[in-house]
């Protein structure tokens, strides 16, 4: 694995190796001294052109647990807000000797551009590019599901909500399909992307019909910041037709779990009592995110020929 740009690039064995490595990371960090010396002397740059709390801190913590040095660049308060181009920023980071660049950008394909334009020799990890992909989120969701449900082959996963703007949905559909799960995306027709029929999943517009068979339900955040036009009449109507409330929670099987990539709009796609119920594994997802990102950084930077300064 050279970069992690898209889950579509992964083979099934690679995906399983990533999840198994994260499982070992759980064992290695479940003790008093959580730090490992593995990436000592490596530099990981978090390059965030979009706001993020959990993804950036999660990557930062993952890198620090592995003893890498971490530099955070965010658009606010840096030259990025003065209009510096991605290329010039990349050349700067290259000159500083970054071994890995974790990038989040509002434009789809930004991570791919950064990795393949020849600007940097660092490994590139996509931490979300526009409405395209968010591979580590998909990995941590799959990891969380696997811990609760066992192997995902034949498991039914339902993804509900704003599929159109969701890079989480796109990455999840492809990764879960790769791992053998049966995926269904559900949402209002206005929030389904063009070409969704070519995704390896079923499409439905009726939440209630899908819940009874589900082993896991992922509620997507309604991304109002990406919505220039109105995609649904009102928040209340959206919540009533597609939100997960106590009534719909009761329709789930007893073993089924509820996921949300965060940040949640409580009262919109998920009610507060569901978010705080014992079926929701949303807080656990955050912890698992660190483990999965440790696995990604280890597998990208742990071996020979990684980073610009390898011997």
């Amino acid at each position: 694995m050279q970069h992690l740009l898209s889950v579509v690039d992964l083979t099934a064995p690679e995906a399983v190796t990533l999840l198994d490595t994260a499982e070992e990371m759980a064992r290695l960090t479940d003790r008093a001294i959580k730090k490992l010396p593995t990436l000592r002397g490596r530099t990981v740059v978090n390059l965030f052109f979009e706001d993020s709390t959990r993804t950036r801190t999660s990557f930062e913590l993952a890198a620090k647990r592995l003893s890498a040095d971490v530099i955070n660049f965010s658009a606010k308060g840096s030259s990025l807000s003065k209009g510096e181009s991605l290329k010039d920023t990349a050349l700067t980071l290259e000159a500083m000797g970054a071994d890995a660049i974790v990038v989040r950008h509002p434009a789809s394909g930004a991570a791919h551009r950064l990795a393949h334009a020849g600007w940097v020799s660092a490994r590139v990890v996509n931490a979300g590019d526009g409405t395209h992909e968010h591979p580590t989120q998909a990995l941590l969701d799959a990891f969380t599901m696997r811990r609760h449900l066992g192997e995902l082959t034949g498991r039914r996963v339902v993804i509900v909500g704003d599929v159109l703007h969701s890079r989480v949905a796109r990455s999840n559909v492809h990764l879960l399909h790769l791992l053998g799960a049966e995926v269904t995306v559900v949402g209002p027709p206005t929030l389904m992307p063009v070409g969704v029929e070519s995704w390896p999943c079923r499409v439905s517009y009726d939440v209630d019909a899908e819940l009874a068979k589900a082993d896991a339900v992922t509620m997507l955040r309604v991304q109002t910041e990406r919505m220039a036009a109105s995609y649904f009449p009102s928040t209340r109507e959206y919540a009533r037709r597609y939100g997960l409330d106590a009534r719909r929670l009761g329709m789930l099987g007893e073993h089924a779990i509820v996921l949300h990539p965060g940040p949640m709009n409580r009262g919109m796609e998920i009610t507060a009592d569901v978010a705080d119920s014992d079926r929701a594994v949303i807080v656990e997802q955050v912890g698992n995110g660190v483990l999965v990102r440790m696995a990604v950084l280890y597998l990208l930077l742990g071996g020979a020929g990684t980073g610009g300064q390898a011997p």
Partner: protein
Amino acid sequence: MPQASQAEERPRLLMSSADVGRALTRIGYEILERNRGADDLVLMGIPRRGVPLARRLAARIGEVECDVPVGSLDTTMYRDDLRLRPTRPLEQTVIPPEGVDDRVVVLVDDVLFSGRTVRAALTALDDLGRPRGVQLAVLVDRGHRELPIRPDYVGKNVPTSRDESVRVQLSETDGIDRVVLLREER
């Protein structure tokens, strides 16, 4: 060289299944003798083949004295040659519930060579707690140490040259118990 290729085809048998069994029995007794019993002992196998060896030693010790906890200690994340080789998958680390604090930890591995794996294991052990003592048991000591590390219990000392490799095979991992010497093409 024709001789070299012949040696590659027919590996030399260093230890048979019975030899491996006898060596482990002797090491089990030596561990008990040295530590005056099995109280406070923890056996930690180094993956992969150190782990089944540690289990077998524990079974032998259990036959004579009491049961001892067995764990496994993956050294990958602590190796000093990580950057020299392709990324390795991680092996399992399992800490017995008794922990390692104030206990005597016996590290168990199949072959002792440069000593670098053992150094990594000692560093890894640092992050788990503070054992009262650490001892090292290996099935084969093949020499060529690069660090000041010596084993406490040895199944067999085998003088080797650097272009040879020692392969330990165990029924748990390879379906057969034996130790062979191979000539390696470098």
